[in-house]
């Protein structure tokens, strides 16, 4: 297995050592939403491993099930969501034996959450309590999960803020007195308050301006390197992940379609959907490319199509695609057995066919 950063950027991210166990292993995981009109298969037999010190990016469109997968793995979903299959194994440095998250007792689950696995939720604008100041909210978290005195908790709240780049003097500020970026930093500080081993970040920078976004991502990477936690980073922005993540999992219609290192996803994307995503971003640097996008929209998960869910939007689709068993198999041409794809037909480098019938490919101005 290789990492996303070869000789590229010092300090190099420690590679997932072969003997190491994943800190979080999700296997054969399925979630449905029970509705009066029948089940919606939100997550369908997903396998995903997160190794210590890694950043795994989970990319997908809205409704692809990426948040459901992450919350489901922490048992944070409520009815009508129902976990129908799979197991989630957590093994931290502090824990003696691996824990089966889906089977542990409620008390253990409480200890696991935040202490071991913390979540930075989407939209920090709404995640903070508007009537409590920042210090009190941080102290709340610290008291709930760690045994420390009042004074220690307050001191820790101050150092947490400083750690995420907010001056200690803002401890008494209320959320409305902080900018969006600062609120997001407070959320990150709260997640890191208990020194968790895994931090799940659900679109933490989506509502922010690019300059602030880059600033916060840089900080997340610095913190990760100094504190040594692992990150599951959920986003719809693949271009962001290519820079940030070690490995990237591409999710579509509740299933993983491809999983590989950032480099593999960028340079040898195997699945047609991954290729479509890569072609959906106008690039700021380099020569102007022909942008294609992906015509059509994702399938209705009330009534998922048989075989590959990407068939209606796929330029490569053939009759055989409706019969395939959606299993992730190593990419035939890849040296890395961990680079897996759900498409057994298309190999990296296969020239793109013309788009699906009736849809003109996108063009841009000036050409």
């Amino acid at each position, binding site marked *: 297995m290789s990492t996303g950063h070869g000789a590229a950027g010092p300090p190099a991210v420690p590679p997932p050592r072969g003997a190491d166990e994943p800190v979080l292993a999700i296997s054969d995981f399925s979630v449905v939403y029970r509705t009066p009109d029948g089940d919606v298969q939100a997550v369908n037999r997903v396998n995903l491993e997160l190794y210590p010190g890694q950043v795994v990016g989970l990319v997908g469109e809205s409704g692809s099930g990426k948040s459901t997968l992450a919350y489901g793995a922490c048992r944070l979903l409520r009815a009508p969501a129902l976990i129908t299959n799979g197991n989630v194994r957590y093994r931290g440095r502090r824990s003696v034996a691996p824990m089966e998250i889906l089977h542990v007792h409620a008390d253990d689950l409480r200890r696991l959450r935040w202490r071991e696995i913390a979540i930075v939720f989407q939209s920090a604008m709404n995640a903070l309590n508007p009537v409590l100041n920042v210090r009190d909210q941080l102290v709340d978290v610290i008291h709930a999960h760690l045994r420390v005195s009042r004074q220690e908790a307050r001191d820790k709240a101050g150092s947490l803020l400083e750690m995420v780049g907010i001056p200690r003097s803002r401890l008494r500020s209320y959320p409305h007195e902080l900018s969006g970026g600062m609120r997001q930093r407070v959320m990150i500080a709260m997640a890191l308050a208990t020194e968790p081993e895994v931090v799940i970040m659900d679109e933490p920078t989506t509502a922010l301006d690019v300059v602030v976004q880059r600033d916060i991502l840089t900080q997340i990477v610095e913190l990760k390197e100094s504190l040594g936690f692992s990150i599951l980073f959920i986003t719809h922005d693949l271009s962001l992940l290519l*820079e940030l993540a070690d490995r990237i999992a591409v999710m579509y219609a509740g299933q993983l379609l491809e999983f590989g290192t950032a480099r593999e996803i960028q340079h040898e994307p195997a699945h047609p959907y991954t290729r479509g995503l890569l072609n959906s971003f106008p690039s700021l640097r380099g020569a102007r490319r022909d942008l294609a996008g992906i015509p059509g929209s994702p399938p209705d998960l009330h009534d998922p199509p048989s075989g590959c869910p990407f068939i209606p939007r796929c330029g490569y689709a053939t009759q055989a695609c409706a019969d395939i068993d959606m299993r992730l198999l190593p990419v035939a041409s890849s040296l890395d057995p961990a680079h897996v794809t759900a498409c057994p037909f298309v190999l990296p480098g296969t020239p793109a066919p013309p788009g699906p019938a009736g849809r003109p490919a996108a063009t841009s*101005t000036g050409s």
Partner: protein
Amino acid sequence: MSSNGIPGPPPDGDVASVAAERGPLAMEAVSLGKDFRLGRGAILHAVRDVSFNLYRGAATALVGESGSGKSTVARLLAGQERLTSGSVRLDGQPVDVSRSRAFRQYKSKVQLVFQDPFSSLNPVHTVSYHLERPVKLRQDKHSRQEVSQETAALLEQVRLTPPGQFLPKFPHELSGGQRQRVSFARALAARPEVLLADEPVSMLDVSIRLEMLSLLDDLRRRFRLALLYITHDIASARYFADEVLVMYAGQIVERGPAEEVTQHPAHPYTQLLVASAPDPDNLGSGLHAGSGAERRAENTGPAATGCPFSTRCPLADDRCRRDNPALQRVSATRAAACWRLDAAAPDILAEPQGGGL
């Protein structure tokens, strides 16, 4: 104009627009200004001395971060907000908000598309209702057959086909992309000359955005719309605009041809914006290298006096903190508002004047 050798550009922000090559002048924004009273005597200068032209068939991008005043500019142009200073001219005629008849005509020629397709359509009305109203009001078509022909044609233009399938639907039955197409169709129903698109794709999924931008591009060409594309995504401006205007704290700090501004930004703010955009071609390096102190963006708001960017600018000196620079000419088609262009963009200034890149 001197061809070479004179250091520093002439102090003249009035440069030619590349968008003018596409078609005749449609709309002029002349020194737009908008102040908001915040209470207790405080005033927010949301838009300050913003001037630009929109040309038929050309796309102009207005790029800036949230709070930079770009949406306020759109609302000023659409007549939804009263100007504090400056004026708007359409086809050479000044816009008079007080004369309701003339203003109604103006509003049908200048259409606005909003960011959020989930709240910009009325949830209790069908697609056909949304389209029939502007067709009846703006196009003066009244017979039932004419109206239904026109609404069907509109849906085909935004590629919602077959139209019969979409006309009876309610907004909640449509996906985000389909809703935004209806918004486009509704704007087109008024047969506009100018289309003001305020972040038209930022609420949509990544895989759909490009298709929507291409559609917008296609409509611009086909109907020779003067398009103002407002966005925070400077990369999309590179692909879908002729000219780019970069806004910071209510002012235009840089303007020029899209390719030149995005590839060789002159103003330090534009440079920061370009450097901050995710760069997949630069795997891992940017994030691990550590960032400069000037990136601590949210801790420092725009400066009250002098150049608004001086609080974040690594090149700021005393003059920057004292006097607010006006747009000055960088080349025949480019201008930037910066005192330190000699240090910020020496290679751009060194080029012969008048040629562009």
